[in-house]
């Protein structure tokens, strides 16, 4: 080989190799970006997932707490969008899975070994927690997840609008439908129960005297009373008294504050914003009774911290959860009361929460204790989706409720069979 051709080959090959490497670059980058920023002073990193809270300052608060933790560098993923569940579930299968995440108690996470039991960190303060919160997180004697906040959901209404229309606070579901009709004008709709109308699912079933599942974990929602309640929903939907396709959904106070509706289903978290905007022109009431003899209902939702049992630093993650959600009461209080209103699950914090002691917040707490019911850990996401489809089909599409419930039964039973055999 001549020297010329040799050097020629070299120069070209170098260029080609460089081009090849450049082409490989993005691939390498794919592998490198794990979302984990290991390092920091202690050399250990944790990732936490939160859904995007609507209240101003919440994201900063969560990041501020995380920064104050000395033992590890905690990165926060603030998941925006409406499908937090999907993003959480699919990320849990990957190497990018969060070490700790907020969610609701659901049995499939425990059965699949996804979340770690937290008895050792909860045990010392177990008596300080609302017993219902402990119960809803307990499976076979083990507690999974630390409750951060309890969020009762009920109806908010504009007192002035009800007064003007001569409507009393509805005591039954039929009265609610009548109220919605009377309150509807060409400018204002009578009632807003969310764009997809699924947020009242729990309360609807409970107020009809039924339940999602019974004690033996069998279907308990398929009753005549629930069918009747669904028919009332359908009637309200077709009569044009409901606010639909609003720019902001039920969890946002905008619809009520902007005067698009007279009554809105929402959570206690939105109360500060509503009070600020509407002053005294604001009242609350539980989901009214939908069957004779049935109690009104309030859904005590909320969020809990879970530790990913398949994470790389389970012990450290548990330490972090213990530090923030068990030891550091000032952060827990700040989180529950400084942004939206949430009821602290710790009795000791709830007792000192002066903001919730008087006026409308106190009424909210009363609804929470009098009528509130908590999540059933056996009612999992797939079942939740199945019941949401009942609303879509029987209320929006107009399918016979009985048929829609039958379809849900098939799906829920398939789920129950997988969980309980």
């Amino acid at each position, binding site marked *: 080989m001549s020297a010329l051709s040799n050097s020629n080959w070299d120069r070209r090959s170098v260029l080609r190799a460089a081009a090849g490497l450049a082409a490989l670059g993005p691939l390498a980058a794919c592998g490198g970006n794990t979302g984990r920023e290991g390092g920091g002073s202690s050399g250990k990193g944790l990732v936490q997932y939160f859904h995007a809270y609507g209240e101003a300052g919440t994201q900063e608060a969560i990041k501020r707490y995380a920064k104050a933790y000395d033992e590890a560098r905690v990165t926060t993923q603030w998941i925006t969008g409406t499908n937090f569940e999907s993003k959480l579930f699919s990320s849990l*299968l990957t190497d990018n899975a969060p070490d700790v995440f907020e969610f609701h108690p659901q049995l499939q996470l425990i059965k699949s070994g996804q979340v770690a039991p937290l008895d050792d960190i909860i045990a010392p303060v177990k008596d300080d927690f609302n017993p219902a919160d402990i119960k809803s997180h307990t499976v076979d004697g083990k507690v999974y997840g630390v409750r951060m906040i309890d969020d009762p959901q009920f109806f908010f209404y504009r007192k002035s609008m009800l007064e003007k229309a001569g409507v009393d606070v509805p005591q039954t579901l039929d009265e609610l439908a009548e109220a919605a009709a009377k309150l509807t004008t060409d400018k204002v709709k009578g009632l807003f129960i969310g764009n997809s109308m699924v947020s009242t699912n729990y309360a609807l079933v409970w107020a009809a005297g039924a339940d999602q599942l019974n004690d033996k974990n069998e279907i308990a929602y398929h009753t005549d009373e629930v069918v009747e309640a669904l028919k009332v929903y359908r009637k309200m939907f077709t009569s044009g008294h409901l606010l639909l396709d609003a720019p902001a959904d039920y969890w946002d106070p905008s619809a009520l504050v902007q005067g698009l509706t007279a009554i809105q289903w929402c959570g206690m978290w939105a109360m500060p914003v509503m009070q600020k905007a509407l002053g005294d022109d604001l009242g609350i009431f539980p989901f009214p009774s939908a069957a004779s003899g049935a109690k009104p209902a309030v859904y005590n939702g909320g969020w809990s911290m879970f530790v990913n049992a398949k994470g790389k630093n389970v012990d450290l993650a548990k330490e972090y959860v213990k530090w923030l959600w068990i030891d550091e009461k000032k952060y827990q209080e700040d989180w529950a009361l400084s942004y939206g209103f949430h009821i602290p699950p710790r009795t000791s914090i709830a007792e000192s929460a002066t903001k919730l002691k008087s006026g409308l917040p106190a009424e909210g707490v009363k609804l929470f204790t009098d009528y509130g019911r908590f999540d059933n850990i056996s009612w999992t996401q797939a079942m939740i989706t199945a019941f949401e489809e009942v609303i879509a089909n029987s209320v*929006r599409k107009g399918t016979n409720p009985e048929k829609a419930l039958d379809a849900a039964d098939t799906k829920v039973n398939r789920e129950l069979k997988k969980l309980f055999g």
Partner: protein
Amino acid sequence: MSTTTTRDATRPAPAKVSKARPRRGLRGSTFNFWLFTGPFLLGLVIFVYIPIGWSAWLSFFEARYTVTPDKFVGFDNYKLMLTNGDFTGSLVTFTVFAAIIVPVTWALSLGLALMVHRLRFMKAFFRSVFFLPTACSFVAASLIWKMSIFSGVRFGMMNTVLSWFGVENIAWLANPNPPWYWLVIVTVRLWLQAGFYMILFLAALQNIPPELYEAAAIDGAKPGWQTFRYITLPQLRATSTAVILLLLVAAYQAFDEFFNLLAKSTWGRPPLVELYYTALGDDQDYGAGSAGAVILTLLICTVTLLQGRFMGFGRGEETK
């Protein structure tokens, strides 16, 4: 390679070089082949073939909340997907969607192209204006459609316009009877993609030789419909076919607008959305989702083969 050849030709001792060249050329070209295709082949294998194989494997297992399952269930997932109605319903949804969007986009983009083609001034301006929406993301456009144009409240744009004529507020997306949601879904896609296909038609229109029109005029063809029907349209046949094919593919891939516009519904879910909800959504049933994906793949293969048989795609020009 051409530069190498010219350079070599100027060399003083060709005999020597030609001796070395075959070996080097062979090794060089093989090396080059792998150098250029290697990274992409690797990417293809990692991101396409392995997932396809994995998916086929998953479809025979009970894979919930895991992609490394161990419980073999045979064809149970296939049975579930074919019998529960959601998946088969999604195929109907896709068919309805394609049946609306393909001809409408075809006609609109052809119409736009014809109009822009005839413009004497500001042609470039209108061409750009109509093409511009292509740059917008489906998600962003869906949100604008949902929250401002087709918002259900009284100050939503469409409801405001309708209220001038005394029409009551319409819940465009929440209420599936009548299915106004198709209007929202079709218009957003139309706005986003018509401009792109207009450019294709415009290019084809400019390629039609003016002599044809002149000859037609001499033969007595009236300008307007007659010329369009017998000259323009046949000349656009190749482009039209390509556009229809591209539109079908795009319609099949539709996901964003359905996902963003229709929440918590049981209708208006084309196959990809349905499979997303099954496998990646709340259910996390990778087994059933994979079974659906395999069924879909088989279906697409069948349709493609049949299409090739009946419409002659892929055959040489001479056999037509």
